[in-house]
């Protein structure tokens, strides 16, 4: 549905987005995760046709965005980092204006506004001037604005930033619900937010996508290959010797365990040695009670992928 091929955005010598490519299918909920200046907003601005690329192309349903801007923009609802609000208008006036420019059929505008107000739960403030609303409510008006044209694809840039914890939870629930019948692309700095809402996460750093996958399995895929954690009942010395003899095991290190009567080792290995370890243990009559690949958490992965390097000044 959304195809991004090799997009690069340069500001003079500074590269904000560097050769980014991905494709997003219908109904996916995808999160862009990355530190400040990673290029998340720039990527979203390109996806929505607000910015053009220096190189590369975005197509939506097979249509390049620059050739069919109007057809594509009709399919998109966008909540930018700063909600684009005309603060001198009331909520209803504003949404009416947005409905008109999004091409909502005239006679359905009032019902559409009522529906969206209900969805984002701001019906009670609909007659208030936007400038007098709290930050959380302004954000909701921003969401309403993205929804009003009934687009298939929703793009939210940091939808929960600056909100209080209660609002954050409500907005997340709302996005999850919207994800049931929309394609949703959102961005965030917050890891557990992305892993709570999205079934797919793309980690961005310095303009590149450095990891892309399911938040539950992504960390495993990126874990250092070849470390195995083995827990054995009983005699430590014998177990260690047996493990060291297994072909493909290059190093055996002790590891603390809470299991009583058991010892635990970290094996540095060459390739997948799990079957061999299992056989060696059983022929040595040792009881193997646990064996797992050493993984990092998503948190650790995120820090590893994005640490060390600071935002490159523009």
């Amino acid at each position, binding site marked *: 549905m959304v195809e991004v091929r090799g997009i690069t955005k340069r500001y003079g010598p500074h590269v904000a987005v560097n050769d980014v490519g991905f494709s997003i299918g219908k109904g996916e909920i995808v999160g862009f995760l990355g530190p400040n200046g990673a290029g998340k907003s720039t990527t979203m601005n390109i996806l929505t046709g607000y910015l053009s690329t220096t190189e590369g192309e975005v197509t939506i349903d097979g249509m390049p965005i620059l050739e069919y801007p109007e057809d594509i923009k009709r399919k998109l609802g966008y909540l*930018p980092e700063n909600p684009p609000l005309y603060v001198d208008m009331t909520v209803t006036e504003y949404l009416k204006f947005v409905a008109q420019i999004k091409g909502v059929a005239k006679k359905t505008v009032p019902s559409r506004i009522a529906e969206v107000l209900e969805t984002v739960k701001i019906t009670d403030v609909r007659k208030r001037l936007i400038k007098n609303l709290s930050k959380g409510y302004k954000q909701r008006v921003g969401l309403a604005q993205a929804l009003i044209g009934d687009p298939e694809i929703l793009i939210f840039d940091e939808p929960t930033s600056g909100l209080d914890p209660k609002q954050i939870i409500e907005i997340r629930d709302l996005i999850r619900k919207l994800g049931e019948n929309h394609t949703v692309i959102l961005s965030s700095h917050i890891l557990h937010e992305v892993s709570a809402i999205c079934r797919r996460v793309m980690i961005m750093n310095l303009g590149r996508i450095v990891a892309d996958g399911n938040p539950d399995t992504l960390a495993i895929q990126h874990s250092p290959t070849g470390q195995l954690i083995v827990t054995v009942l009983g005699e430590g010395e014998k177990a260690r010797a047996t493990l060291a003899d297994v072909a493909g095991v290059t190093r055996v290190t002790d590891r603390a365990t809470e299991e009583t009567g058991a010892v635990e080792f970290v094996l540095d290995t060459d390739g997948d040695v799990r079957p061999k370890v299992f056989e060696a243990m059983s022929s040595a009559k040792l009881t193997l009670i646990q064996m797992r690949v050493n993984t990092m958490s998503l948190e650790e992965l995120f820090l590893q992928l994005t640490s060390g390097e600071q935002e490159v000044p523009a």
Partner: protein
Amino acid sequence: MIAVFKRELKSYFLTPLGYTFMGLFLLIAGFFFSYGNLLPRSPRYAQFFGNILFIYLIAVPLLTMRLLSDERRLKTDQLLLTSPIKVSGIVLGKYLAAFSVFLITLAVTVMYAVLVGIHGDLAVAETIGAYLGFVLLGACFISVGTFISAVTENQVTSAFFTFFALLFIWLIDLVRQIVPMDLTSGLIFAAVAVVAITVYFYMNTRNLVVAAAALLIGAGAVTATFFLRQEFFLGIMSDVLDWLSLLARFGSFSLGILEFSTVVYYVSFTTVFLYLTVQVIEKRRWA
């Protein structure tokens, strides 16, 4: 376009800006009407417009300063530009809103004409001509202001530059008389223009090849013209300035003469500036 127009028109009166413009305009107009027509009991109403032309210098920057600059500052341009409407529709809607505020204000002054008509001998043809000319001139100035508000991000800068742009147009006829007419200065002027265009291309594309191509084509054109039609460079500066000379063309209107070519000129001038405004906004995405 209609939605943008309506919102913009309304926003003029949701903020003090619309009222400030109207108040200022009517204050100056009223003052000059009182001193020019009312007190001397003069029925020469068309002259009134000649007297208040300078009103544009102050009023237009006020009218157009936040038209497009504020959209950028408040980031609401992200809403407009990611909606299924054309940039030309946005610009036209905004322009027409500013123009309408101007027309509404000017409509109040029709009262003056009626007053003159009741108490004296109003030269109807002259008056209509003067109104038409004044409106067309306003259309041109507002298009310049619209363009400048698209290239600035701050309303104060926008107003400031608009004022100076209009002042320049004001003084153009004076400048025209002092620019050199000889071949050398014509050539220098052409060369500077080519370089300026090259720089513009480079700033927009950040592509040396495109810029070099523009430079070569420009230099080629200048050289070719030099050998084929040298006289082209004589007075080229004055010709270019003449193209921008809006006020010189106003005179005939207040005499009640309706010159079709002048109407076309004013309309084209406005169209060019609105076109440039659209281009600036479209091109910014490529920056």
